């Protein structure tokens, strides 16, 4: 076998310096390419500009009021912003936002992944279509409707759950219930879990559906049961997609406003027990206080909005790190 006869005897003339760049530019001068390039580049730049202008707006307004704050912005449990000098801090809001979102994620992600797996790998086809449709409908319900449902149906019916948690887990302190109305961070977390369930389910379902058949067959051929196929092929392949889906859900949970404001009875304190009514979240606090706030009060609320913005950025960055760290092993390079 003589491979060398197939190689061309004369190498192609090497391009002059600069010629390669010319070629790409010439490609872009066709009208279709030029329009598309302009559109995609423009969209990218617009996105950055919008982000930057939000950041600038938040930062500018926040730093107008922050030097006036007599309390510590990060540790004060007060929100007196309509007086001079103002005295306010975000500790309660950070706690409430993070805790209610963690509860929501802890409840929603396993259920959403379970539903997505059921729809893609267990349910008969004539069942999975309608179920997926119902879940899509859940995503279309406005958040005020969730809020009303939460306040009128969920809250009055939680005594049983609260009592059970108090009986079995009350000793931890976290689930200690004094008998107050269940308008607590736990209830908010439950409601948020229901609200973010559809988006996580839908994105996960899409990801699980795209698991290459050959990866599943690889596991099957080794004698894997259906669950083992899911564990060996489907979940690892879908891992980064599920993380992205969860981040979409978390984004909604962190920023959810009206449903939280409808269900929670807000106070400016941090309760040891998740079952005690009280607490607050960034978005709920802004919505509740914005109407009666003075110019200075609004700046303070915007300062809290800046913190929420930063938290969201950090969460997304962390998610990207998790995905990137295992990129080498992702299904994408198979």
């Amino acid at each position: 076998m003589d491979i060398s006869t197939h190689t061309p005897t004369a190498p192609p003339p090497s391009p002059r310096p600069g010629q390669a760049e010319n070629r790409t530019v010439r490609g872009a001068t066709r009208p279709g390419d030029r329009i598309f390039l302009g559109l995609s580049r423009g969209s990218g730049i617009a996105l950055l500009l919008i982000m930057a202008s939000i950041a600038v707006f938040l930062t500018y307004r926040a730093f107008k009021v922050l030097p006036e704050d007599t309390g510590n912005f990060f540790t004060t449990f007060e929100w007196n912003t309509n007086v001079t000098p103002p005295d306010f801090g975000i500790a309660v809001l950070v706690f409430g936002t993070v805790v209610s979102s963690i509860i929501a994620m802890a409840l929603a992600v396993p259920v959403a992944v379970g539903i997505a797996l059921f729809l893609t790998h267990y349910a008969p086809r004539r069942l999975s279509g309608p179920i997926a449709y119902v879940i899509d409908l859940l995503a279309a319900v406005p958040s005020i409707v969730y809020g009303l449902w939460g306040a009128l149906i969920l809250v009055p019916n939680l005594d049983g759950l609260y009592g059970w948690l108090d009986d079995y887990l009350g000793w931890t302190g976290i689930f200690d219930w004094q008998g107050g109305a269940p308008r607590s961070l736990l209830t908010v977390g439950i409601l948020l879990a229901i609200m973010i369930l559809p988006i996580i389910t839908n994105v996960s379902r899409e990801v699980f559906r795209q698991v290459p058949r050959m990866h599943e067959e690889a596991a099957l051929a080794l004698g894997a049961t259906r669950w083992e196929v899911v564990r060996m092929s489907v979940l690892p392949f879908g891992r980064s997609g599920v993380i992205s889906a969860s981040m979409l859900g978390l984004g909604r949970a962190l920023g959810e406003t009206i449903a939280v404001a409808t269900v929670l009875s807000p106070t400016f304190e941090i309760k040891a027990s998740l079952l005690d009514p009280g607490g607050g979240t960034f978005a709920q606090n802004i919505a509740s206080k914005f109407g009666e706030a003075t110019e200075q009060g609004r700046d303070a609320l915007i300062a809290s909005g800046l913190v929420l913005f930063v938290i969201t950025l950090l969460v997304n960055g962390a998610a990207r790190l998790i995905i990137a760290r295992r990129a080498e092993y992702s299904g994408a390079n198979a």
Partner: protein
Amino acid sequence: MAKRIDVSGLSAYYGSHKAIDDISMTIEPRTVTAFIGPSGCGKSTFLRTLNRMHEVTPGGRVEGKVLLDDEDLYGAGVDPVSVRREVGMVFQRPNPFPTMSIFDNVAAGLRLNGNYRKNELNDIVEKSLKGANLWNEVKDRLNKPGSGLSGGQQQRLCIARAIAVEPKVLLMDEPCSALDPISTLAIEDLIGELKERFTIVIVTHNMQQAARVSDRTAFFNLAAVGQPGKLIEIDDTERIFSNPSVQATEDYISGRFG
């Protein structure tokens, strides 16, 4: 160890479409049997009935008998999962688990089957990779992802993964069709070594390959598109390629087909 396969009156369906019709054959232990035939003749479908992978396809079902020594793979109460632990399979496109390291890929089947101590696992993985002629190329990077290997190496990794669980039979569905000639040669050499330990059935489109690696060759054909595929004849490879008893086989082998 290696077992005999005895197929009688086997038909396979996709929904209402009959893909293969009434196939019977015997495959002796520790031999290589090649399936050849035009595209759509059902040779891959037939191969997949031998480890009950056919029924994984929606609408896939099978009639007839496949005996592995004396056990009917389609008998009542036989778990397809345990069948596939006895009958291993290598696919057309190399499909190592992309999220697993080379080591974990080979150990994957073992971990399904039970608990192994760490050094037991190490030994089996090394033995399997050596058995697949891959050990020397990967022994320094067992913790790197399997998807980083070349196509031919990935296919040998898949073979190592399949033989690690010591199956009785190894099915190969066009294992070289996505590989370059040098990698193909490596796999073919490997098949020659593996038949000492396993019963091997290989589907191939490459007739030289069938002639090179197999002891017995089965020729499949279909009357027309949409018709079920049939087994035309099965015989010693030498005889099939020199003096087949059916004219259609000779036509196909000599390129006078269709």
